[in-house]
């Protein structure tokens, strides 16, 4: 199971590796002080992560629609921060693919944001250090989209306002009606009819692509006659 864009490393794509190597070489050649800005140097880890069970999802799209509704008041696939792809003619378990933002420890999307002096997606302790995008600051350059190393890209492009958006674990959900984020609830986990999405405060293994795919099938699932393996 591998949804990273290329095989150089599960964490760092070839494009991103070349970008970083190039930038490092240029800096050294130019005699630039390699001290990095404080917010990059000390990117605190997110206080929450979403995990999914690829073998359990029933493909109802409720998580996608609810995600878009709680964030923007509009039901939509395109505006959903969680994406479910399915192929009706596919073979289980490959007939469904669920993707959520990984809230990367070393988040390329945050690194890439050129907005200054404060990045549009800077991590903020008051929001549990979630990697999120402040659309009031976003300039629509798509750097975050281009630098996400995963397929499909975990950052969405809202073409109607020409800005990026991404999963914020429901920190900024004006239509949720209760507190979201790492200290609150995550809409997708609450509405999923089969509990195929869960929330954890423990950071999944960043060296493995499949560490966000978990087995959420318990005794009830087995009693329904479906595999829990």
């Amino acid at each position, binding site marked *: 199971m591998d949804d990273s864009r290329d095989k150089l490393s599960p964490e760092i794509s070839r494009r991103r590796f070349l970008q970083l190597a190039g930038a490092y070489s240029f800096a050294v050649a130019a005699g630039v002080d390699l001290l990095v800005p404080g917010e990059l140097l000390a990117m605190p880890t997110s206080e929450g992560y979403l995990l999914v069970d690829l073998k359990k999802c029933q493909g*109802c799209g409720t998580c996608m629609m609810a995600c878009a509704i709680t964030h923007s008041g509009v039901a*939509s696939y395109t505006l959903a921060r969680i994406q479910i792809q399915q*192929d009706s*003619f596919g073979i289980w378990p490959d007939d469904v693919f669920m993707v959520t933002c990984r809230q990367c420890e070393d988040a390329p999307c945050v690194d890439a944001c050129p907005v200054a002096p404060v990045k549009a997606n800077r991590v903020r302790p008051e929001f549990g250090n979630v990697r999120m995008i402040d659309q009031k600051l976003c300039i629509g350059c798509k750097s975050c989209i281009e630098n996400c190393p995963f397929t499909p890209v975990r950052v969405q492009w809202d073409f109607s306002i020409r800005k990026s958006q991404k999963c914020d674990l429901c920190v900024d959900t004006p239509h949720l009606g209760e507190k979201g984020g790492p200290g609150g609830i995550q809409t997708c986990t609450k509405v999923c*009819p089969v509990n195929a999405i869960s929330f954890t405060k423990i950071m999944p293994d960043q060296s493995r692509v499949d560490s966000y795919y978990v087995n959420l099938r318990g005794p009830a699932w087995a*009693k329904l006659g479906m595999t829990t393996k």
Partner: protein
Amino acid sequence: MALYGYAGKILHLDLTGQKSDAIDTEKYRRWGGGHGMGSALFWDFCKDKSITDGRHPANVCCVMTSPLNGTVVPSAGGRCEVVGVGVGQYPVSWFTRSNFGGRFSTMLKYAGWDGILITGKAPKAIWVDIRNGKVVFRDASGLWGKGTWATQQEIWRLIGAEPGTRNDWQDLRDLKGGSDRDEGKTTQKPAVLTIGPAGENLTGHGSLIHDAGNGAGQGGFGAVWGSKNLKAISVLGTGGIKVADPQALIRARRTVKEKYVTNWEKPDFRAWTRLGGLPKPIVQVAPPTPDRRPQSCQGCINGCRERYSVGYGNESACQETSWYGPFVRKVAKSRAEDTEINLRCADIVQKYGFNSFVLQTGLHWLEHLHEEGVLGKGKKIPSDLPWEKIGTVEFGEKLIVALSTRKDIGADLADGWVQAALKWGREKDLRTGALQFSYWGCPEHGYDPRAELEWGYGSIMGDRDTNTHCFNQIFTTISAAFAFGMTIRIEAEEMVRLHVRKMAPYAQDRPEVLDFSDANMYSEAVAQLVRWQQHYCRFWKQSALFCDLKWPDFYNTNMPNLEGATGSPDAGEQVFWNAVTGDRISLIDGIELGRRIWNLDNAIWVLQGRHRDMVHFAPYLYETKYEKGELFPFYMWPCRDEKGVWKYTDLMGRKLDKAGFEKWKTVFYRLEGWDPASGWPTRQTLEKMDMSFVADELQKAGRLGGGTS
């Protein structure tokens, strides 16, 4: 003013001119959505409402969504309604309906359309490519002849949608024939609705199929599309639907999961409820493998289908997986083989776009004819099908191919099974019940009208096998409990009380409406029950598009007071409708709108030629007793005994009384405000519903009812 829940436009496809235009949804807003809007569009756009064969070029077909589609309303987000004049019924084909699930209606709304109005006939085979506001008529000569699955996959390829499920976002500009403007990106595949060979060959069995197993079967709409040279409609949308009160919508959705649905941690696997179970696929065979998932329509609270690791059977459920069962059981050497044959034949049905429902009772009849020596090689009804291999995949496939392509016996059966029976000189089979096609040339559903009155009466007063399970779960739940020695969790009197407390405005707190005993079967009370079901369904199920299998939720053993979600202040149908649209309607308001839609439909039937003299069941229902059940050896239903005590009672062993049913029709027509002499609507009734435009057209046709007394 924002039109919450609606996309705002209806797409009109003029196939004759290969032009499209947009109709303002606001003009049809009074009809709610789905069926209501479809009927109103049919009324306005069908130039000849006297037609009785859906293959007539004047026929108009509407594929309609609801404001709730594409949202998280539980088991309402993904249904889609189809209306138009049907094919293959008897004695004529009425203006009728069908319904399918999946993700088509969601995608259509996200593309900016509340429905599709199809008029005219294309000069050659076409498919229609919808990507947001861009609508292109494309040549379908390369698709004609292909099965429904191959057609969908080929359209994905033609558009440039990536196969599989691990794809990146696709920019609509980068797809083949893509737009020049930035219309966003999607990870989703186009949703395609298509016909297969059964529709192309204009057979009454022709279905519309979407994805692997979503089908609009009844009505023969596959033949309607085939007659219009319309192979498929593909839609891809990147927009969204604005919701009036998102917080209320999410709150109600969570209330259903957390309150009305059984708890995952300590589940009640045998909960008595329609809405509140865990995903329990209604596949009628043992699962082929534990390596599978439940699969559902968009927004569903508990999926009723499955996808498997074995490579067959994806998304087929219920009838598709049982039509062949009695025959397979005779040849299968193991349970695994039984499953495999049934599911492989379900796949064949889906691929041919064939409505297998006719075979549920129809294949028994064909076997009977074969055993009688009438049907077969060199027989009076010639057939080269390998009847000795009935029950095998080989026979199943050859049968479906013949019926889909007008070959062998398919040549006669393509235009209607009752018509074929008459042509073959088998009129007596309609009297003995050897051919159980109960109403309007439609097959009996397993819920015999002699026992389950609301099913039969609702079908014959309507346009087809009603296939509305509002009350039917009483039979299946109670009969299964008796059959398998399970606990009766709700006794008869309580069961009836739980239903009628929610049955305003016609039957609230009138338990007698559910009494199907011999003494009550032609009563005003049962007429009120049928009215409630028809009106409720015309709006809440067929226009708002709540799923027939999940709603209404009258009783629910997950609740301490046993009361289901229907009409409840925290998760009733009206709560969801209002949260999405911003309306402030009640459950009863919806039923009243359903009454108007039902009246509009009846007006169309009257213009097609309906008169009460035509409204009869098949003769066997009057002439023979109901003695053999499809599912159980008894038919349990709550009835009052002679002392007025409620008991679950077996309704087998009786027949319908023609005079009694005629009397019941008169009562029903009077309650509806229709002329009891003809069954035609009256001006007074129509004007009270602000439908004088209907009265005017009926009057012009000389078919306006004269009075109600």
